[in-house]
C-alpha cells in the first residue's frame, strides 16, 4: 500500500509535467489545427533558460521560473510570427514540416553551445518528509502545486476572460470571427505566448526534479506529451490535463511493477488500445464530415 501511495505521488509529479506540455500542444492545435512539433524543444529551451538564470545570474527559483517563462514565450511568439504565419494558408503538412524543422534547429543550436549534459544547480533545498512510510519531498509538492496552479490560471483565462472567449471563438471558426472585430493575429500570438510559457514552466520544473539537462531531452518528453494531448482529445484543454496525468500514472505504474524497460512499450500500447475504443480521445468529439 505504501509503495502504491508512493508511486501515485511520483505519477502525479510526472503527470503534471506532461500535462503542462500537453496544454501547449492542444492550445495551438485548437486555434490553428496545426501540430506544433517544436513545442517539445521549447520545453527544453525553458529548462535551459532556468539553468542559465541559475548559473550565470545566480537567480533563485521564482525569478528563474519567470525568466524562463518570459524568454520562451517571446521565442514562441517569434517562431509563430516568422515561421508559421506565412504558412497559414499553405497546405497543412508544410506547416508541420516547418515545425519539425524549427524543433531540430532549436535542438542543434543549443547543442552547439552545450555539447554535454549540464547539471542544474540546486535552486531549492530539498526537504524530505516521511509520512507513514511514504517519503514526500518539498520538490514534489512544489511541482504538483505549481502545475495545478498554472492549469487553474489557464482555465480561468480561457473560460472567463475576453481573450479566452476570443480564443474559443477562433477555434470554432477562423474565417468568420475576424469579421466580428476579433484581432486574429493578436489572439494567436497570445495563445502561443501562453502555451509556450506553460511549456517553459514544465521545463523549469523538470530541471528541478531531474537536474541533468541536455539539448535532446525535449524530443521524447515532447512526443509523449503530444500523445497525452491526443489521449485527452486534441484541441480540448481539460482533455490535455487528464491525458497528461493518465500517461504519467501509466508510465510510473509500469516502471514500478514491471521491468522498467517495458515502460515505453506499455505506455504506447495503452495509447493504441485507447485509440481503438475512443478514436477521438477521452474528451474529444468527432467532427462530423460533410460530403
Amino acid at each position, binding site marked *: 500500500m505504501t509503495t502504491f501511495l508512493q508511486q501515485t505521488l511520483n505519477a502525479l509529479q510526472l503527470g503534471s509535467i506532461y500535462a503542462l506540455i500537453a496544454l501547449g500542444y492542444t492550445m495551438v492545435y485548437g486555434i490553428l489545427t496545426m501540430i506544433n512539433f517544436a513545442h517539445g524543444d521549447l520545453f527544453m529551451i525553458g529548462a535551459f533558460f532556468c539553468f542559465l538564470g541559475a548559473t550565470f545570474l545566480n537567480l533563485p527559483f521564482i525569478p528563474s521560473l519567470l525568466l524562463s517563462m518570459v524568454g520562451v514565450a517571446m521565442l514562441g511568439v517569434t517562431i509563430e510570427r516568422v*515561421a508559421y504565419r506565412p504558412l497559414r494558408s499553405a497546405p497543412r503538412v*508544410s506547416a508541420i514540416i516547418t515545425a519539425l*524543422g524549427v524543433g*531540430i*534547429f532549436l535542438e*542543434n543550436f543549443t547543442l552547439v553551445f552545450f555539447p554535454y549534459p549540464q547539471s542544474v544547480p540546486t535552486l531549492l533545498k530539498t526537504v524530505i518528509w516521511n509520512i507513514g512510510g511514504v517519503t514526500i519531498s518539498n520538490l514534489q509538492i512544489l511541482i504538483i502545486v505549481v502545475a495545478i496552479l498554472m492549469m487553474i490560471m489557464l482555465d480561468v483565462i480561457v473560460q472567463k476572460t475576453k481573450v479566452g472567449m476570443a480564443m474559443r471563438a477562433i477555434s470554432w471558426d477562423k474565417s468568420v470571427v475576424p469579421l466580428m472585430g476579433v484581432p486574429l493575429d493578436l489572439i494567436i500570438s497570445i495563445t502561443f505566448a501562453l502555451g509556450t510559457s506553460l511549456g517553459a514552466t514544465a521545463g523549469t520544473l523538470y530541471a528541478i526534479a531531474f537536474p541533468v539537462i541536455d539539448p535532446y531531452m525535449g524530443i521524447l518528453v515532447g512526443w509523449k506529451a503530444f500523445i497525452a494531448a*491526443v489521449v485527452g482529445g486534441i484541441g480540448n484543454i481539460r482533455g490535455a490535463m487528464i491525458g497528461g496525468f493518465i500517461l504519467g500514472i501509466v508510465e510510473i505504474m509500469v516502471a514500478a511493477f514491471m521491468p522498467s524497460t517495458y515502460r515505453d512499450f506499455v505506455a504506447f500500447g495503452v495509447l493504441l488500445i485507447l485509440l481503438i475504443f475512443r478514436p477521438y480521445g477521452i474528451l474529444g468529439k468527432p467532427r462530423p464530415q460533410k460530403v
Partner: protein
Amino acid sequence: MAQTSHPPLTLRQKLTQLWEKIATNRRLLPILLVVGLALSFLIPEFNLVNPYVQLIMMYVGINIILTLSLNLINGYMGEFSVGHAGFMAVGAYISAVLTTQIFARDLNPWLFPLAVLAGGIGAALIGLIVAIPSFKTRGDYLAIVTLAFNMIVKSVIENIEAIGGPRGIPGIPRLTTLPWVFIWTVLAVWVIRNFIYSNHGRGVLSIREDEIASDLMSVNTRKSKLLAFTLSSFFAGIAGALFAHVLQFISPKVFDILKSTDILIMVYLGGIGSIGGSILGASIFTILLELLRPLGMWRMVLMPLVLVLLMLFRPRGIMGMREFRWFVPIDDLEATRRWRARKEAGDAAASS
C-alpha cells in the same frame, strides 16, 4: 556564311530546348540504366572514386528507397506517417540476424539477397498490422498510431536479449555493395512507379483527394490502403537491411524518431506525390549534409534552417505534385497534352 533569320537564342532558351529534348526522349532511360549498372560494378572494382564517395553513393541509394516508400503513404495516399524508421528497424534486424547468426559466414555473399528480401517481407507483414488502424483513424490520430508503432518497435527490440537488447548487433559483415544498392534502388523506383500508375495506385490517389467520394465510386479503399502500407513497409525493410549491412552495427537507438524525421524531411524537401522529387530530395539532403561537414556542429543548425526557408518559399517542396516526364506513362502525357490544347483553344475562343 549565310546568316540565319532567327535572332540568336539566349542561353536560357538553349538550356530549355536541351532539357525539353532530354525530358521527352524515353530511349535515354534504358541507356542510363545500363550505364549506371555498369558504373556501379566498375567503380568499386577499379576504385574510380575514393571509398568515402562510394559510401555516400550507397547512402544516397538507400535514402532514395526510404524516401520513395514513405512518399507512397505521405505523398500519394495523403496520410501522415511519422514512424517509418520502425519498418526500417524490422528489416535491418531480420537481415542482420540472418547474416550474423543463421547463415554460414562463407555463404553470406550469395545468401545476402535472401536476407534483404526476408527483411523486406518481415517489415511488410508488420506493415499489414499497422494498416489495420488506418481503416478507421485518419490524419493526426493515424500519425500517433505510427509514432507509437515506432516507439513500440524500439522498445520491443530493447527487451529481446537474443538480438542484443539495447546494445544492438555489432560486427555485421559489410555485404551491401554499390551494385546491390543500385539494383534495389532501381527496383524500388520501378515497382512503386508501376504501382502508382496501376488501378490500385490510382485508388490510393483517390483516397488522398477524397476518401468518401472514392469509396462511393466503388474504390476498395481498404484494399488500397492495405496494399500501399504493405508495399511501403516492404521497401522500408529492404532499405533497412541494406543500411544495416553498410553501417555494420545496428542498435535500437539508430532507428528512433530522429531517423523517421530525417526521412520525413527528405520526402517534403523533394516534394510530395512525386517520384522524381523523392529521388532529388534524398540525393540533395544526403549530399548536402556531407558537403556541409566542414562546418562541424553548425551544419546541423543550418540544415533545418534550409528546410524552414524552403517550406516558407516553396511550401510544396522542390517537385511537389509534379513529375519528371520520364516516369509518367505515355497515355497520361497525351491526355494532359490534349487537355491543355483544349483549354488553350477554349481560352482563345473566350477572349476573341
